[in-house]
């Protein structure tokens, strides 16, 4: 197997909580608490979990918008923590992001040409005409016409804006794109267009994706492998097909039970878990899922399970196995 593009080892991010006049640190929000994964070239890793589970903090750590409390991020074998100068710029060139809401992620005062050209102006010393040519090229890559370059974002629909955001992410020699819920803000008929487009781009360009989402069906569709996150930890990872065929962690099973049916014949009302995600300020002892877990045992509230190999390749952190 080819060496991974991105490897994350023991990644932690704790946000200190200060209370009172003397601003002592009283506790910490453990947003990301020991996460390991890797993404191979041309691969899509789906990161799934509910709000507050640390998906977005993980993506911010990868994009170097936050410094990790512990752990390391390796890009093509090199730790990104020590990068500076030209090497740091090279990393920023290679790792791009597409956000959820294309209405707020594109500046309304910039023309499409300038939006897509911005990373090129920062990272390359191409001439004006060469930048224009590259802008036209990536616009065509994402299925837009070259001549939309002089328009403003408000002249586009949601789906088209998301294409512009993807074009911007592809403008430099991108090897990894962090997709933070890129289709949740779009209309149903447009979602399929964007998902197909992303899959097509991956096949032709060989870029890797970190696809963050909360809709199981969408994540399972686009990802090769899936990591399920709960309260800052990965509770299960496996191939997308393996995970769909046999989810093992009770939380993954609960996510599948909560997934909406694709046909009225598949209706079921049982199996939804009760309760809500506990506050990351006061994490439950032992397994973080045990207060909501239907098959919790006495050990679950005392010992935190480690990720172990599950059958059919993959890892699961649960005392049941």
């Amino acid at each position: 197997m080819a060496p991974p593009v991105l490897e994350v080892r023991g990644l932690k991010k704790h946000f200190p909580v200060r209370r009172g006049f003397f601003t002592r640190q009283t506790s910490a929000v453990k947003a990301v608490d020991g996460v390991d994964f890797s993404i191979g070239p041309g691969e899509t890793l789906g990161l799934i979990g509910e709000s507050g589970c640390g998906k977005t903090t993980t993506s911010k750590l990868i994009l170097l918008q936050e410094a990790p409390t512990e752990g390391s991020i390796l890009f093509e074998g090199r730790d990104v923590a020590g990068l500076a100068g030209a090497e740091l710029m090279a990393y920023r060139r290679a790792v791009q992001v597409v956000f959820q809401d294309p209405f707020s992620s594109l500046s309304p005062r910039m023309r499409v040409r300038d939006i897509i050209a911005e990373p090129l102006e920062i990272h390359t010393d191409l001439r004006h005409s060469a930048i224009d040519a590259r802008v036209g090229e990536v616009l065509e890559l994402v299925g837009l016409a070259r001549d939309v370059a002089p328009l403003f974002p408000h002249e586009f629909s949601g789906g088209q804006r998301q294409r512009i955001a993807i074009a911007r992410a592809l403008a430099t020699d991108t090897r990894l794109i962090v997709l933070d819920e890129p289709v949740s803000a779009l209309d149903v008929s447009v979602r399929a267009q964007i998902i197909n487009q992303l899959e097509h781009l991956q096949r032709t360009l060989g870029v890797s994706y970190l696809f963050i989402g909360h809709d199981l069906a969408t994540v399972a569709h686009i990802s090769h492998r899936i990591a399920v996150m709960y309260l800052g930890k990965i509770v299960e990872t496996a191939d997308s097909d393996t995970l769909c065929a046999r989810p093992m962690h009770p939380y993954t099973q609960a996510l599948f039970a909560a997934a909406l049916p694709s046909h009225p014949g598949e209706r079921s009302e049982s199996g939804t878990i009760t309760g809500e995600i506990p506050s990351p300020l006061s994490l439950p002892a032992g397994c973080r899922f045990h207060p909501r877990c239907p098959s919790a045992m006495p050990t679950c509230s005392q010992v935190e399970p480690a990720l172990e190999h599950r059958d059919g390749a993959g890892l699961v952190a649960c005392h049941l196995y």
Partner: protein
Amino acid sequence: MGGLDGPPKPPALGDAPAQPGRPSKSVRDPGGPKGAPVLQVSDLRTHFFTFGGSRVVKAVDGVSFALREGETLGLVGESGSGKTTTCLSIVGLLPRAARIVGGSVRFEGEELTRKSQRELRRVRGRRIAVILQDPMASLNPLFTIFRQVAEPAFFHQHLRGRTLRARVQHLLKAVRIPSPEWRMRDYPHQMSGGMRQRIVGAIALAGGPSLVIADEPTTNLDVTIQAQYLDLLKDIQRETGVALIFVTHNLGIVAKMCDRVAVMYAGKIIEQAPVQELFDDPKHPYTRALLGSVPKLGSKEPLYSIAGQPPNLASLPPGCPFHPRCREAVERCATAEPPDFHQRDGSVARCWLLEHGAARS
């Protein structure tokens, strides 16, 4: 119905539309498809007039459907297809620029389109309740949960004091808020998103409505919380027999919740069918495309993508509004608009391709 709370005693579980036992029971037993419809919308047309009336946007253009007691209708469509405007027309909460220019809304035998706002105020919150998408926006951050849940019972049922408090506790318990006697003193910001949406549900039930319009109530919720909320709505419906209109763009929610589905496109219902028929045998190419564009668990088949963008209502193409995006369009689609074709299995669709099938049945 809900106004029957005459004697000052706390309503028992079983909830709103009437006193527990009888009325709700008799409502439930017919199982829906019998008796007069609760709501009958016929040929409703709501247009927006902007730039002093020089620009007319036909947001709702000839929508008809009926809803019976205990029934759930899914109103499906993309943004801008007229789902929300249809709902706002029913309850008379349209923005200023919009006007109902034709058609009728009959609710429990009364015509709503001709009622004044003052008369409508006695219908809204009492007999028709609305649940909106964003619970934070529909709750007032300055008032306690108690005050907001109590409001419909205070105004419509004239409950006061201890009775009112008991009623609120009962409603909060019905939507599964833990320790309601404490939580009702809290403010909305002290609640999680799922709890807030359940509170909005409690407010909706407070007047004892016979129709609840839920406009994308779970869009902002997490998947497991969404599943809890949908199950809760179903339980409440089973207990009280309210009719539900579920506005959504999520076909999964339709598959889970609805008895019948109306698919909207460009201000019109282009297909209406019982939910089973719609998923088994969609008649309109747009419905087929919508169903094909949703990823299915465990399948990696490429998704069916509908070309183009949802239409701009201010400049609709002639003929069938879907024809520029339709893969099966024929010449006629660009010139003449198809009427409703009734199908043998009880579905109705607007597509020229069905003309002969309809004639045969």
